[in-house]
C-alpha cells in the first residue's frame, strides 16, 4: 500500500518544460531512499496551471510544487517524502500562508473553477484504465446498457441542455436524435469525435485527451448505443503526439477489458473505435471536411444539406461531436440532466473549458460554469495582466471569433451573449491582449492564418481572404485610405454570406469585430499614419532624445543595421533610412533615451 502519491504533470506544457526528466530523477531518488514501496509516482494529465510548469503535487497533503527542476528532486525526496517537511521554498507561493500551506483548491486560480470535463485531468494516470474505473469510469456506459433505452439516453442529453463545445453550440441531444431517427433502415451508422483542435492558442481538447482519454471512449460508446452505431472514429491531429499515444493505449486497454468490442457487459451491444490522424490542415476541423478526410480523400468541405445525420461518413448517418462535449456525457448520465442543467445560464448549460493565453499571469486551462464573466476569468482566475499593463481586449474563438473589449468585461460568457457582441464561443481559446497589442495587427495575424489554411475549394474564401489580407497589410504599412476600410468591411460581409463552409463564413470575424470596437485604430493607421499601440513597424519612427543620451555607445554596438552613429559621450543619432525598427536599441538603453512613436 502506498502511503503517498506524487503526481507529475505529463501534459504537453509540462513535458516541454522538462517533466519527463523530473519523473526519472524522482523515481531513482525515491528508490535510493528506500521509499519505493511507500511512495507511488503517477504521471497525470494537465493540472491547468501551465504557466507554473513543471508541476508536481504530493498527496495526501496536497502540496503543490511549481517550476520544479531536476536539481530540486533530492531535496524534495529527502525532506518531504522521507522526513515529512515540506520544502516551502519550492511550493507555489500563493498556497504558502502564515499558518502553513493551504489547499490548492483554495487558491484564486482553482476556487472559482468547476471541473466537469476536466475532473480527472491531473488526478488520474491516463495510461492506467483501472484509475479511470476507480473514479467511476465506465459506470455510465454500464448504466445505459443495462437500465436505459436509446431514447432515454437521448432524452437525458436533450434535457441536460448540453450544446456542442466545438464552437457552434448545436444542441447535442438534438444531433443524436436526428441521427437516430432520420434514416430508419441504415445498415451502418457512425460516431465520430472531432479532436482536430486547430485554433491558435487553443489546447482544451488536447488536455482532455492527454489527461483522461477513456472519458472520450466511454462517451462515444454511449453515443453509439443511443443512435444505433457500432463503429466510431476519433480524428485527432498528428501534431498531438502525446494525445495520440495515450488514445492508442486507452483503446487497447478498453478492448482488453471488453469495454470496446463485441457484446459489451454481456449485452448485445457492440462498439469499436478507430483512430485517424489528421495531417495538420485547419479545414479538417470542419465537419464535412473531417469526414472526407477519414474517408481517405483530400480534406475539403462539401455543401450541406445533406447533413451528416442523414448522409455523413461513407454516406451513412453520422454524428460528430467535439472532445469536450463527449467529456461531459458520462457525468450527465450518472448525475442526471437536472444536475447538469443547474449549472450555467438559461440557454447555455454546464461548464466551459478555456485555454487562457496571451498577456495574462496564469497561462493555462480553466473550467468555469457558463455565465461566468470575463472579468472573473481574467482578473481573479487568470491573475490579471502582467507588468501593470491595461486590459484592452480578449480574443475568443480563434480565427473564427472576435474580440471582447474592456467595456463588455462584465457580461456573462455564454453562446448567445458572445454572438450578440460580435464574437463567438469557439472551441475555447481565450487570448488576452493589453495596451501594447495593435488590433489591426491582430486582425492581420488571423487573416494570414486563414489565407494559409483556406482549402481553395470555393472562391469567396480562397480569393476573398487573400484580398482582405492585402488590404490589412496596406493599412498596417500606412498606405491605406478610408475607402480601403469601407471596402474591407464590404468584402467581409460578402465572404461571410458566400463561402461554402464554416472556415470562410467565419474568417472575416476578427476584422469585423475589431472594426466594430476599435475602428479608431484603423483610422489612426490610415489618416494619422500612426500605430497607437506601437506595433506596426512601418509606422514607427525611432528617435534618440539628445537630452537623455549620455553617449555610452551601447545602442550603436547592438544595432544590427549599423544605423546608429555618434561619438563617445555625445548624443547619438539614428539614421532612419537604415533603421530596421527591431527595437534592440530600446532594450539596451539604460537611460530611457530612445523612443518609438
Amino acid at each position, binding site marked *: *500500500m502506498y502511503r503517498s502519491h506524487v503526481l507529475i504533470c505529463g501534459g504537453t506544457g509540462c513535458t516541454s518544460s522538462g517533466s519527463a526528466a523530473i519523473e526519472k530523477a524522482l523515481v531513482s531518488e525515491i528508490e535510493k531512499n528506500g521509499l519505493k514501496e511507500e511512495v507511488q509516482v503517477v504521471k497525470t494529465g494537465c493540472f491547468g496551471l501551465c504557466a507554473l510548469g513543471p508541476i508536481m503535487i504530493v*498527496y495526501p497533503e496536497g502540496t503543490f510544487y511549481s517550476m520544479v527542476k531536476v536539481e530540486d528532486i533530492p531535496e524534495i525526496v529527502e525532506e518531504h517524502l522521507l*522526513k515529512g517537511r515540506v520544502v516551502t521554498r519550492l511550493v507555489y507561493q500563493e498556497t504558502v500562508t502564515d499558518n502553513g500551506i493551504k489547499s*490548492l483548491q483554495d487558491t484564486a486560480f482553482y476556487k472559482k473553477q468547476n471541473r466537469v470535463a476536466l475532473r480527472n485531468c491531473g488526478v488520474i494516470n491516463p495510461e492506467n484504465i*483501472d484509475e479511470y474505473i476507480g473514479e*467511476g469510469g465506465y459506470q455510465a456506459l454500464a448504466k445505459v446498457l443495462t437500465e436505459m433505452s436509446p431514447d432515454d439516453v437521448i432524452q437525458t442529453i436533450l434535457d441536460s441542455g448540453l450544446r456542442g463545445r466545438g464552437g457552434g453550440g448545436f444542441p447535442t441531444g438534438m444531433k443524436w436524435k436526428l441521427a437516430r431517427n432520420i434514416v430508419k433502415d441504415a445498415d451502418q451508422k457512425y460516431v465520430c469525435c472531432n479532436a482536430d483542435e486547430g485554433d491558435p492558442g487553443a489546447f482544451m481538447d488536447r488536455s482532455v485527451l492527454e489527461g483522461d482519454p477513456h472519458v472520450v471512449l466511454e462517451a462515444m460508446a454511449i453515443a453509439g448505443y443511443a443512435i444505433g452505431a457500432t463503429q466510431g472514429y476519433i480524428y485527432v491531429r498528428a501534431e498531438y503526439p502525446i494525445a495520440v499515444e495515450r488514445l492508442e493505449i486507452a483503446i487497447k486497454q478498453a478492448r482488453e477489458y471488453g469495454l470496446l468490442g463485441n457484446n459489451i457487459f454481456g449485452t448485445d451491444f457492440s462498439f469499436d473505435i478507430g483512430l485517424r490522424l489528421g495531417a495538420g490542415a485547419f479545414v479538417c476541423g470542419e465537419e464535412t471536411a473531417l469526414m472526407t478526410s477519414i474517408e481517405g480523400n483530400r480534406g475539403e468541405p462539401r455543401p450541406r444539406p445533406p447533413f451528416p445525420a442523414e448522409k455523413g461518413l461513407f454516406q451513412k448517418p453520422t454524428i460528430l461531436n467535439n472532445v469536450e462535449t463527449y467529456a461531459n456525457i458520462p457525468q450527465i448520465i450518472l448525475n442526471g440532466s437536472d444536475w447538469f442543467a443547474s449549472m450555467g445560464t438559461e440557454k447555455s448549460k454546464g461548464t466551459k473549458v478555456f485555454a487562457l493565453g496571451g498577456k495574462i499571469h496564469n497561462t493555462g486551462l480553466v473550467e468555469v460554469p457558463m455565465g461566468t464573466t470575463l472579468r472573473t476569468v481574467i482578473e481573479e482566475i487568470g491573475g490579471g495582466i502582467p507588468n501593470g499593463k491595461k486590459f484592452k481586449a480578449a480574443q475568443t474563438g480563434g480565427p473564427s471569433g472576435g474580440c471582447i473589449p474592456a467595456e463588455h468585461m462584465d457580461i456573462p460568457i455564454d453562446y448567445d451573449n458572445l454572438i450578440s457582441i460580435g464574437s463567438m464561443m469557439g472551441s475555447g481559446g481565450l487570448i488576452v491582449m493589453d495596451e501594447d497589442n495593435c488590433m489591426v495587427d491582430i486582425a492581420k495575424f488571423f487573416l494570414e492564418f486563414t489565407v494559409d489554411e483556406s482549402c481553395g475549394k470555393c472562391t469567396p474564401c480562397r480569393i476573398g481572404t487573400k484580398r482582405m489580407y492585402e488590404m490589412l497589410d496596406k493599412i498596417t504599412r500606412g498606405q491605406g485610405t478610408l475607402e480601403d476600410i469601407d471596402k474591407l468591411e464590404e468584402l467581409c460581409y460578402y465572404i461571410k454570406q458566400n463561402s461554402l463552409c464554416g472556415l470562410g463564413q467565419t474568417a472575416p470575424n476578427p476584422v469585423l469585430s475589431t472594426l466594430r470596437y476599435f475602428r479608431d485604430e484603423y483610422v489612426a493607421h490610415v489618416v494619422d499614419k500612426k500605430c497607437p499601440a506601437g506595433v506596426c513597424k512601418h509606422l514607427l519612427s525611432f528617435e534618440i532624445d539628445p537630452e537623455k543620451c549620455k553617449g555610452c555607445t551601447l545602442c550603436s554596438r547592438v544595432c544590427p543595421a549599423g544605423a546608429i552613429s555618434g561619438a563617445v559621450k555625445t548624443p547619438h543619432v539614428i539614421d532612419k533610412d537604415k533603421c530596421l525598427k527591431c527595437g534592440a536599441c530600446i532594450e539596451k538603453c539604460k537611460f530611457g533615451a530612445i523612443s518609438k512613436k
Partner: protein
Amino acid sequence: MKIEELNAIRDKMKNQVTLRAEDPDSTKVLVAMGTCGIAAGARDVLTAFADGVAENNIEKVMVSQTGCIGNCQLEPIVEILEKGKDKVTYVNMNADKAKEVIEKHLIGGQVVSEYTI
C-alpha cells in the same frame, strides 16, 4: 467484462484515488519523522499505519508525516487529529502498538490511553 468485475476494480482502486482527494473532514494520522523519529523506528510505525488503514478499508483517514515535535526522547510519536475532537498524541510507538491503535482508536473510536503522553 461483467458489471460486477467493473465494480470490483472500482472498489479496489478507491483507496488509491481517494488518497488524492483532499477531504477537510478526514482524520489525520501524523507520524513524526524528524531525524530522532526515524532513528527511533518511526518508519515501521508509518508503514504499519499506512498498510493497516488500507487492509481494513478505513475510509476518511489520511496517513502522513510531520517533523520533530520536540519530545525526542518519546519518539516514535504519532498524532491523531480527528475533526471536532482533541488531538491525541501516542508516544514510544512501534508497529504492534500501531496495529492496536488502528483497531481500537481508528476503527473502534476508543483512545488507547496507555500509549498516550
